C-alpha cells in the first residue's frame, strides 16, 4: 500500500479521495481536507471568480492540489474559456471539465466534453473530464489527450451511489487511464465499492457537505476509500467474482 500511488499526468498522489469544496461553509474546508486526507480539492471557477470578500481560494490549504472545474459551461467553447480563466486566476494547470446542457439532472454532454478536452490538452492542461460512462466516449477522451476519465456514478447531488456500476466497470477494464468515479457517491460504503471495483479514485462533495458532522464524515470516506483500495489490491475473494462457478468442473472429464 505504501508504494501505491495515484498518478495523474506524471503527478503522484498518495490519497485516492478527491474532495469537493462547494455546498458548505468555507471555514470547514480546512478540516474537511485534513480528515479526508485529501490531496486534491475541486473548486468551481465561477465561485473563485469573486471579489476579495471571502474568496473560496483563500480557504484552500497550501500543499493541496487545486482542481478547478468548469461548471456553468454549456458548450466546449465556454468550458475552454473558463479553463483559461482558471489559469489566469493562478489555479494551475489541472482542469476538470464539466459541461452541462441540462439544469435538471446536470448530466454531462459527452460530445462537447471530448471537444473541450482536445483543445485544452493541446494547451498543456491536465484535463480531467467528467463524463457519462460510455466506452466509446472514454476512448475518444483518451485520444483527445485526457489525463483521467471521470465517469458519474449517478446524478450530481443525488447520493444514489453506483447506478452506472456495470458501465463504470467496463471503463475500468478497458481504459488505461485512471478512472475516477465522480458524482452521486452518497455514502462511504459506495465509495468503498467503487474502489473495490478498481476505480483509481473517488470524488465526493454533497455527501460530506450535507452530513451532520462534516469532518467525521470526511474521515469515514477516507477510511472507506482506503479499505476499498486495499481490497482491490489484495485480490477479491472468488465469491465476489462476476459469474457463477460450479463446484464440479465442466472440464473434469478431460484426461
Amino acid at each position: 500500500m505504501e508504494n501505491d500511488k495515484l498518478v495523474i499526468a506524471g503527478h503522484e498522489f498518495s490519497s485516492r479521495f478527491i474532495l469537493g469544496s462547494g455546498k458548505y461553509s468555507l471555514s470547514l474546508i480546512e478540516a474537511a481536507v485534513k480528515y479526508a486526507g485529501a490531496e486534491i480539492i475541486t473548486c468551481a471557477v465561477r465561485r473563485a471568480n469573486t471579489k476579495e470578500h471571502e474568496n473560496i481560494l483563500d480557504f484552500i490549504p497550501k500543499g493541496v492540489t487545486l482542481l478547478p472545474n468548469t461548471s456553468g459551461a454549456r458548450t466546449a467553447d465556454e468550458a475552454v474559456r473558463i479553463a483559461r480563466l482558471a489559469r489566469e486566476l493562478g489555479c494551475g494547470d489541472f482542469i476538470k471539465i464539466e459541461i452541462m446542457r441540462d439544469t435538471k439532472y446536470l448530466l454531462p454532454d459527452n460530445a462537447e466534453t471530448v471537444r473541450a478536452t482536445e483543445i485544452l490538452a493541446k494547451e498543456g492542461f491536465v484535463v480531467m473530464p467528467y463524463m457519462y460512462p460510455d466506452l466509446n466516449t472514454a476512448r475518444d477522451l483518451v485520444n483527445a489527450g485526457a489525463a483521467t476519465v471521470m465517469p458519474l456514478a449517478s446524478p450530481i447531488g443525488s447520493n444514489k451511489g453506483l447506478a452506472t456500476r456495470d458501465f463504470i466497470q467496463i471503463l475500468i477494464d478497458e481504459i488505461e487511464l485512471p478512472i475516477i468515479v465522480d458524482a452521486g457517491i452518497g455514502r462511504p460504503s459506495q465509495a468503498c465499492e467503487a474502489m473495490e471495483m478498481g476505480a483509481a479514485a473517488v470524488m465526493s462533495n454533497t455527501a460530506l457537505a450535507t452530513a451532520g458532522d462534516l469532518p467525521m464524515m470526511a474521515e469515514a470516506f477516507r477510511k472507506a476509500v482506503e479499505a476499498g483500495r486495499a481490497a482491490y489490491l489484495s485480490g477479491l475473494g472468488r465469491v465476489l467474482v462476476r459469474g457463477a462457478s460450479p463446484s464440479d468442473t465442466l472440464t473434469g472429464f478431460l484426461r
Partner: protein
Amino acid sequence: MENQFFVDSEVLSEAALAKKHKLENDPSCRTDHMKYMEGQQQISSDIMQKVMSQVENYDPSVYTANDVMRALDKQNPSVEDLKALLSPAAEPFLEKMAERARIETRKHFGNTVYLFTPLYIANYCENYCVYCGFNCYNNIRRMKLTMEQIEHEMKVIADSGMEEILILTGESKTMSDVKYIGEACKLARKYFRMVGIEIYPVNVEDYKYLHECGVDYVTVFQETYDTDKYETLHLMGHKRVWPYRFEAQERALMGGMRGVAGSALLGLSDFRKDALASVLHMYYLQRKYPHAEISLSCPRLRPIINNGKINPQDVGERQLCQILCAYRIFLPFAGITVSSRESKTFRDGIVKIAATKISAGVSTGIGDHESKYTGKESDAEGDEQFEINDSRSFKQMYSDMSEEGLQPVLNDYLYV
C-alpha cells in the same frame, strides 16, 4: 375583506380623474387584454396551452390526505402529486413537506444561500395596475436616474460587498427605454459579477441586446394567471396584454439569456391556482429549454404609498411555506428567491427549508441607497414601489446567514 385598490389623488386633473374612473367602472372602455398590441412579438409556443390546461382543470378541494401522503412518498412527484401538495389537504402535512423539501434543497444546493440586491433606476410607469405603488395614477415622487447617478448607486452597493444585482424600472418605454436600461446594465457589469433585470417584457431582439449588455437573468412576474382577474387589475397600458407577458421568459431564453424567473403575485387571485401555474410555467419552460436555469419567486401583496391597507388576503405565512415546499419537492433543482417583502423570521426559517436566494440591503425607492446605507441625506429621491418588511443590511444578512449554519454565496457565475 377584499383589497380596496382604487385611490384618487388630489393632484389629478378632472379629465384624468374622469378617465381613471371610467377605466375602473366601465369594462367596455378597456382594451382586449388577450390581444397583442402593435410591436409586441408573437412567438409560436405551446407552453401557455400546457400550463393553462392544467390550471383550468385544477380543483384543490378534491385532494385527500391519502393523495398528499402518496405524493410525499414519490421520488419524482408528478403534476398530479404537485396539485395535491398545493391543496388544502396538504396543510396538516406542512412539517413533513418541510422535511422533504429540506432534503431536496440540501441535495441540490448544499448548505449555501445566495445573496443579491435590487436596484431601481426609474419609477415612471405607463400602466395602471391598481395594486402597484408605481401605477401612473398614484401620486408619488417620480424619478429616473442619470448614468452618473446609477454609477454612484452601484458603487455604494458594491462597496457594501454585494456581487449580484437585479436592475429594475417602472414600466415606461418612453422614460426608460431599452437603450437606457442596456447602458445601466453595461455599468453594472463593471461593479457586479452577476446582472439580472426585472423590467417590462420586451421582444427577442431586445433581450438579445440586453444580453450583450451583460444581462443573463430575466425576471418577469405574471401577477396572476387568472386572465379574467388580470383584466380587472391591469386597466391600462402595455402590461394589460396578458399573453405577451406570459411569453416573456421564453423570449428571453430565445434571446440568449441564461436563466429566467417568474411567479404570480400571491394574494391577487386564487393563490393555489396561481402557485400551480407559476411552478408549471417554469417547469414546462425548462423541459423545452433544458439548459435554462429556472427560478421561482413568491411575492405576496404588500402595502404601497397612498394605500397602506393592501394585504395578501388568505395567503398567510403557513400557506406561503406550503407553496414553497411544494415548489421545492416538485422542482428540486430550481432556484427559489424570497424577497424582503417577507419578514426576518420567515426568511430565516425558509432558507433552511426551500429558499436558495434572498435579498439584502434592499430599497425599492429610486436613488436612495446612499441615504439608506450611510444615513447621508438626499432630497432627490423617488418613492418606493412597495413597503419592504425585512430591512437587514448586506453585512447583517451575511452574518445572520452564517449563524444559521449556511454559507452565503455572493457569486456563482461567469459571464461567458
